[in-house]
């Protein structure tokens, strides 16, 4: 999920690294120490605890596992979590593209501040975002009071979950599309225009295909983040079983009832979904890199 070596500065053909390519033996010290510490820390903090979830679930019988991960209440939570995450991701894809476009192509006063504030959802603790959004969208809140007469309820409904997940996913699309858009040379558009394409044709046939990989990557990242999100959602969702209960909340509920196996089984389903998404995002980024290398 990374383009670590995207930088043009990487001196991959440096004289010393040519010999280093065949083995790890170089004249630089510290490989054993740093690698050993890295692997030990990774194992102790991340891998062994994650393994515990799979080991615990492996100890369950198949029928217990199915009962835990496919009961009607759990299915309702999957529907809500996946549905609201997809909806929020799609909205972010559209508005994220517009925000990125405006930030790269136009200039207006305060643009630098707007650019900086796009990262707010990364920096603001999720619990703070949760209570702030709830206050805004509650029936007597700043936004909710204008929606209530129209019969639109946001807080404590499906729409509340969607609003919180949109907030959380907002920076992903902007920050994946922005650099690609910045890198795009106006000459391509100019060439299309001189060949007789209208502005709309340029956008649809030249720009969008060029931006598609990064748009999809941004969507996938926002979606993956939204699936696991807890803090910003629990306050605004109302947490009614079968209706507004997201999967992470259900895991906590099971834990509080000392149903450790049930909680872990659902967690394993979510972990496997996340790993598949991670793989997908990696492939998407490889694709978008190849796209841009050509």
């Amino acid at each position: 999920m990374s383009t670590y070596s995207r930088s043009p500065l990487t001196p991959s053909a440096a004289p010393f690294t040519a010999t280093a390519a065949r083995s790890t033996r170089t004249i630089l010290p510290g490989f054993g120490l740093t690698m050993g510490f890295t692997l030990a820390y990774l194992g102790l903090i991340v891998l062994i605890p994650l393994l515990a979830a799979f080991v615990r679930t492996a100890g369950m019988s198949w029928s217990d596992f199915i009962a835990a991960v496919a009961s009607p209440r759990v299915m309702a939570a999957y529907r809500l979590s996946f549905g609201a995450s997809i909806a929020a991701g799609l909205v972010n894809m559209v508005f994220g593209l517009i925000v990125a476009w405006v930030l790269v192509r136009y200039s207006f006063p305060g643009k630098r501040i707007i650019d900086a504030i796009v990262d707010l959802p990364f920096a603001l603790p999720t619990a703070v975002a949760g209570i702030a959004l709830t206050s805004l969208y509650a029936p007597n809140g700043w936004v909710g009071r204008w929606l209530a007469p129209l019969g639109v309820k946001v807080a404590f409904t499906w729409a509340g979950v969607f609003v919180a997940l949109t907030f959380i996913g907002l920076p992903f699309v902007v920050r994946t599309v922005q650099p690609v858009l910045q890198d795009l040379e106006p000459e391509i558009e100019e060439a299309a225009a001189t060949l007789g394409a209208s502005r709309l044709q340029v956008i649809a046939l030249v720009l969008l295909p060029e931006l598609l990989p990064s748009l999809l990557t941004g969507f996938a990242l926002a979606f993956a983040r939204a699936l696991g999100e807890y803090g910003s959602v629990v306050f605004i969702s109302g947490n009614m079983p079968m209706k507004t209960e997201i999967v992470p909340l259900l895991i906590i509920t099971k834990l509080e009832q000392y149903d450790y196996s049930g909680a872990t089984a659902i967690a394993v389903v979510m972990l496997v979904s996340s790993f598949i998404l991670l793989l997908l995002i990696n492939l998407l980024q490889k694709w978008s890199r190849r796209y841009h290398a050509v």
Partner: protein
Amino acid sequence: MTRLGGAEPGTLNAHNDLTPAIQTAIPSRSARAALPRAVRDPAWARWFLTAVALVFLAFFLVLPLVIVFAEALSRGLGYYLSSISDPDALAAIRLTLLTVAIVVPANVVFGVCAAWAIAKFRFRGKSLLTTLIDLPFAVSPVISGLVYVLVFGAQGWFGPWLIEHNIRVIFAVPGIVLATTFVTFPFVARELIPLMQAQGTDEEYSAVTLGASGWQIFWRVTLPNIRWGLFYGVVLCNARAMGEFGAVSVVSGHIRGETNTMPLHVEILYNDYNIAGAFAVASLLALLALATLVLKSVVEWRQTGTP
């Protein structure tokens, strides 16, 4: 380039790296303003799209930020000050600071080690290792807490042994520290890895040929080169560590004055219908977020050279 959760500094690096390319294509700001007519959008489209973007950001970013401070001060400054100097609030602030003081240095040491091994040497399975380092970003915070309950909880692998020796991990401070470490695990490493890869090994090799020892190379050559990236990683790691809610919520046990961090204290006050009090403590966390954004912009401007 991108990661699940957490900030997106990799992307920022990528777009910093691209700056020279843009500068060659478009020599200056004034030249850019004079984009060829065919490529410029009509004025109405510019206005419309800018308005759409700003309204969207106003509703989703600016209003939530403003309401935090408005609600925090809704019962007056006196109530605000007493809310954040309440003994339970102070205990929560102390616990949050203690957690950060353990977690951030641990992840800095890890991040520097991982970046050194990955960026300066070649070995098999490097891409697998970098993917594994990113793994915590793909895991729901709730699950990050849960796995530690499975290892150290009463029913967990080490549970009976810990009870026998009267050591508490879950529903106590060690559990909070571990869960926070998990959640903030990749931040420093993934800031440093691309940076050190981009810088290559030439300077370090020169230092070796001049007879420098490993530590001398690190302190005098590598560290000065990576200091801004490292600083940025620390800022991001710190922000996430202070604000982590889901993972800590699972392992903390919510004992007031003892195992409540700041976000958990916000939750308790909010659920007690002490809205102004909850937002008062939340406003401290919001200030932290704003400080993070400012520091991030400063580092970015330093790196790209634009004021």
